[in-house]
């Protein structure tokens, strides 16, 4: 982010600032009632604010409510959070490890089955997840992946990998093959070129693709629900079990919704720290092309 500012005007115009503030408000506004709801005990229409807050009733309820419940061991929020993050990290890592070679081939070579390969990469995005999920469920039950972590990771890769490959392909298409040619003439073999030239040059794309895979994985409910057989809980399955009971949004669910958004923000923050470019989807060289592709 730092060096992309090079060459831009120092200060945005007043109109641009207002626009940015409005956009920011549009993204943040939905969270405000959630935060309020997560601390409320009674909040009915048409009251603007809750009539009773959680801290007013803390001593009256027989069991912990809202944040008290979520943060108590009874809720098992900790293990769901850990599951979500761990599965998301493994999915992101596997998506990059398989996605980088796949994207390289798609971007650099022409082969006869290329169109077919690209079609199958789109399929998981087009076909409803429930079809994929039921199919995988039937298969996984037979091969012993039902109710296992590897089973869930594999299921998550199905929607995550196409996004990762799309982003990485755009990145490779924008990478001048001349860099690798120069490196060859300077004595760099295949491995050295990958390590010292190609990977550093696509760092922003790697961060973006990894982030997408992670975000997709941490948001998946249906596939996890089917493959876990209720045995392994993640934040989305936990949230849906609360929402599924129907009724008004209670403080516990509101709190859970807030927590579900934590892993993504955390990952974005860390990726930005490590590469200095995790946030740069729009400013990365591949950014413009990546948008057209979708």
């Amino acid at each position, binding site marked *: 982010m730092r*060096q992309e500012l*090079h060459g831009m005007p120092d200060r945005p115009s007043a109109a641009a600032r207002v626009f940015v503030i409005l956009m920011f408000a549009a993204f943040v506004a939905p969270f405000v009632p959630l935060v309020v709801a997560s601390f409320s005990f009674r909040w009915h229409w048409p009251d603007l604010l809750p009539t009773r807050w959680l801290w007013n009733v803390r001593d009256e309820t027989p069991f912990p409510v809202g944040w008290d419940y979520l943060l108590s061991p009874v809720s098992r929020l900790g293990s769901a959070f850990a599951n979500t993050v761990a599965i998301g990290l493994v999915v992101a890592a596997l998506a990059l490890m398989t996605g980088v070679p796949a994207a390289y081939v798609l971007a650099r070579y022409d082969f006869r089955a290329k169109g077919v390969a690209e079609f199958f990469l789109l399929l998981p995005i087009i076909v409803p997840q429930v079809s994929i999920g039921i199919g995988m469920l039937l298969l996984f039950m037979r091969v012993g992946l039902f109710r296992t972590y590897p089973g869930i990771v594999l299921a998550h890769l199905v929607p995550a990998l196409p996004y990762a490959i799309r982003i990485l392909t755009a990145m490779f298409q924008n990478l*001048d093959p*001349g*860099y690798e*040619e*120069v*490196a*060859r*003439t*300077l*004595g*760099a*073999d295949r491995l*050295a070129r990958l390590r*010292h*030239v190609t990977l*550093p*040059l696509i*760092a922003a794309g790697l961060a973006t693709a990894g982030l997408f895979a992670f975000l997709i994985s941490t948001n998946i409910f249906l596939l996890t629900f089917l493959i876990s057989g209720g045995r392994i809980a993640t934040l989305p399955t936990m949230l849906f079990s609360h929402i599924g009971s129907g009724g008004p949004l209670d403080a516990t669910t509101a709190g859970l919704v807030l927590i579900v958004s934590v892993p993504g923000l955390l990952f974005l923050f860390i990726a930005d720290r490590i590469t200095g470019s995790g946030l740069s989807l729009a400013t990365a060289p591949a950014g413009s092309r990546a948008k057209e592709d979708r």
Partner: protein
Amino acid sequence: MSSITLVGITKSYDGPAVIADLDLHVDTGTVFGLLGPSGCGKTTTLKMIAGLLEPDAGDIRFDGASVLALPPEKRRIGMVFQQPLLFPHLNVEQNVGFGLRMQGMRPRDARPRVRDCLAMVQLERFAERFPHQLSGGQQQRVALARAVVTDPVVLLLDEPLSNLDSRLREQMRQLIRGVQERLKITTIFVSHDQEEASELSDRMAVMFDGRLAQSGRPYDLFMRPESTAVARFLGSTNLLEGHVRAPGLLDTPIGPIAVSCAHGVEAGRTVTVSVRWEHLAIRPVSAGEPPNSFCGIVRDVVFGPTRIRYTVEINDVEIIVVAPTDLEYPRNEPVVVEIPARHVRLLQEAHASATLPG
């Protein structure tokens, strides 16, 4: 330092041959300029010498030993491309030191050599900068330093000046010349700019459609072009078509010209001759003119610091004359142009030249 020899190189990309049966030899420590219009196959030739492309047939030898089996990373070459292609995540020193790092040298040990190469391109003070902080010309100089840091036996330059403005070109040209002379490195230089190639090369060749049309010293190519195509491409010359009336006498649109070249050509044939701009003489109209002189009118005058270029209309044909600056003829002035018989050169037709050897 090695000599470079190409024997019968042929290359095609799913279609007609881009390079057809190409033979080429570059002596140890010399600069060879490969000149041609875009798409003539000169960059393809360079990439095959580098190993970045594989020829379909033929052999490439450094000092007589075939290098075809070696990948580019083992050929000990340095190459500068049209774009600088500096690694954007590395600073200048790391970019220049890249080749040494690939040889397993630690940055600390590589530093003296890197600094030495940066000094050669006059960029010692920029070692800590990153590529995006440099101008295009500076980037290309870093690319040159990076290409020679590993002491390659062959230096390949693929139009390294084409993206620079004219003042920077001149500077970069002198730098390349200086680096080459100091390292005595065998160099092949690809260009579409005749001036660039002639100033840098010890020997040069003009390439059309994957074949060498003519090769030799720059002086020979400019003064003794063999074909119309070569003469037209190198430029700075008047091309005239004429019929041979008798041995040593041509009928041309500007009038009959006595020539010393066309003696072997039978009468009645149509030929093309070339006379260089600076070999013509321009004089005021007077009585008692020397032979081979033609009256004309000055149509255009372009003044240069060391010479003046006149366009003279003779019998509805425009002839260009480059003359010394001691006399000036204004526009629309009648003048006499003399064509010295010994400077008229007979050319082969373009299609005939393609089948001629070398």
